[in-house]
Every structure is written in C-alpha cells, then in structure tokens.
C-alpha cells in the first residue's frame, strides 16, 4: 500500500492498483448457434423409388429414417411435400 500525505496531516490511503476505465473488457464471444435443421423436400417419385430399392441402397436414401416414414408420407398423399431430414 502506498501513502500520500502532507506532513502533519492524516495519511491518505491510495489503492495499489485500480482498473483502467478506458480498457473495455472483452466480452466472450458467444458460441455460434447452429441453425435448426431444415426439412428437405423429397419429390414423390423419389419416395416411390426408395421404396422400390432394397437393402443398403434403401438405407442410403432413407438416411437412417425407417422406411415407414417414406411409406406413410406416400400413403397420406403428402409425398410431394414428404419430409426426410438430411
């Protein structure tokens, strides 16, 4: 601790270090939020084609989703807008 005082007066306490007000603390940059996964529109003919495929090829096109998703969208006539996630 440092002291500054006139002789005969009460010593004034000076803090050893104070923050520099001109230095703005760097705010941590927030982690980028990934955009929500967008549904991918699959045309009707592809859904039909997928259903016609077998084995690995079907899995590949269904991208892990069960075949019933494709089938369901086909049966409900929603296949034009049927949704498979990327």
């Amino acid at each position, binding site marked *: 601790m*440092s002291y500054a005082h006139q002789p005969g007066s009460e010593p004034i306490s000076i803090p050893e270090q104070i923050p520099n007000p001109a230095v703005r603390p760097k705010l941590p940059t927030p982690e980028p939020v990934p955009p929500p996964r967008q549904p991918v529109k699959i045309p009707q003919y592809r859904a039909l084609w997928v259903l016609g495929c077998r084995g690995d090829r079907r899995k590949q096109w269904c991208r892990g989703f069960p075949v019933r998703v494709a089938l369901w969208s086909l049966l409900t006539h929603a296949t034009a807008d049927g949704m498979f996630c990327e």
Partner: protein
Amino acid sequence: MAFATSFESLVDVLAERVPAKSTLLAREHRRVDHGLLSVGLKLHCLGDGARFAPLIEALGGAGRVLERNLYKRSEASFCLVLPPTGSARVAVLLLECLADYTRAQIFNNPNVQLQVCSPGRLTPRSAAFLAIGFYMASDTLRTYALDDFATTVSRNAYHRGKRLVIYDGGMYGEFDCDFQWWARTENGLMVRDHLPFLTSRTDIIVGPGSPNDIININLLATVLMHAQAGEEGGYWQSLGELFVRDFSALLNRHLLLGALEAPWVCRTDFGGDGDPQSDEAFLAALQEIMVYARSEVSRLSRAGADNGILCEVQALLRTYRDIIGSITLAEQGERT
C-alpha cells in the same frame, strides 16, 4: 541471463498435464505474427513459490533451472526465465500452460510478477515511450514505488538502478535470435531468418500483469524498435516514426512531453546513471504519469466521458494494431 530450460524440454514437461495446449505451443513456438518482435518472459515469484516446485523439479531441479542466474527482483524468492516465443499470442499461451500445470494464478497475481522482454535496446527516448505507453494502456493503473523495481543488479553487477525499463545484462546474457525479422528493402518486404541483435534487449518490469500487457508491450516495442532500426531497415520503420510523432503530439496535448526527458532506463553499464539520484528523477516522472492517469480515472468516473489521455492511448494502440494486423506475409513479399 540463462534460460531456465530449452523450449522443447519445457513443452515436454508441460505435455504431461496440458497435452492439447502443449502441442499447440510446440507448433507455434517460432511463428512470428505480422513482423512483430519475439517475446521473452521472466516470472519473479514472491513468497515461497511452492506451486512451482514440481515444475522446477521436472525441469531438472533448482540448481539447473534457477541458480545459474544472478538476476531477480530483490524481494523475489526466485526468477524463472522462460525461453522466448515468436509472438505475444504464444507467450500468453505459454503462461496459460504454466498456470494449468502448476495450478497457480499467473496473471494479475501479486506474488507472480512479470517481466516482458523485447529484442534490441531502445534509445532512452523510445524507452520512455514504451514505459508510458505500457502504463497508460494497461488494464490496471498501478501505484509503483521505487523499490518495486529493485533487482539484484540495481547496485551490483551491471548497475541497472531501479527502473521500470531495464536493458539486458550485456555479455552475461543469453539471447535467442532465431526469430524472423521483417526488413524493408527497395523491393518491399524481406523476411530474414534471424533478428539483427546479438544480445541486446529492452525489458519492462510489469509487476502483476495481464495478457493485455504482454500484447501491448509487444506492439509498442515493435513499432519503436523498427522506427530506430536504421541500417537494419525495419519494415515498420515509417509506421514507427509516425507512431512516435502521434504519441509525442498526444503527450504534448496533455503537457506531459517533459516526462520523456527523465532517465527511464539506465543507459550505461557499470555505473553511469544507475545511481540513486537518477532513480529519484525517474520516479518523479513516473509519479507525474501515475497522478495524471489517476486524475483521469476520477474525471471519467464523475463525468462518464469517453475522452482523455487513457482513451486516447487506447485508440492510438488500436489504430496501429489494426494497421499492422492488416498486413500479411503472403500479400507483402517473399521469404528469403
């Protein structure tokens, strides 16, 4: 001043506890950013420094790591001299690794005081710019006493006095010059593989310091050293000269130009202005700067203003950092 250990040995030891950062350290050790100077660090440990004991032991013991050096702050129990790095960024990373390894707080710790070393000896006037620029731009405004700068060589060995800025130990020093130096030729940038200095350094005895201090000192030392590089043709020479002009004008506006005339650094080896009278003359100038900065803090807190010398110094450094950061090696020329 002998390094405590080689960089490779240090990284090997750190890798035991901090593997990811150590890998990054090893890869980036000699990388120079935008022609900024390399950075050396000394840690003056006050207190018993018990947290550093395992590190020192792993590096070969106190006899090998610490006791080869005469130099330390008078109050310190030991001084750890770290091998230099190519940039302030890597220097900060190195200290973060040390903090992780030792589990000791290194930044802003009153018991771990930093000394930041830059290659080359600045002229006394440039040393004054370095000291004032560092002080005004720091995260914290410190109240230094003269004894905060007392070292084992203040009155003995090479008589450096008690100063914020201190030169190297001359022929007693160890210096790693294997870092790139950005030189200017008729054809533009030429990158040399070695620094144009044999042993010379200019250090700042920071005290408890922050990453921001290391980065600011590195920037200031670079522009000032390039401004005075002369025959070595520092690439940033004209920018450095412009910086000196801008900083002089700034100090003149605040009636502080006279502070540059004080003996901020002991200029000669073995005596000269390392005497107590010169120490007092230096302290008077430092106090003038400290009081002015503190009065600015009071004014800023009362008025909520965003002007004044502290803000101006921040803006000045930001401008020059942006200019230097905007130039890349790929754009400017070929390595030689």
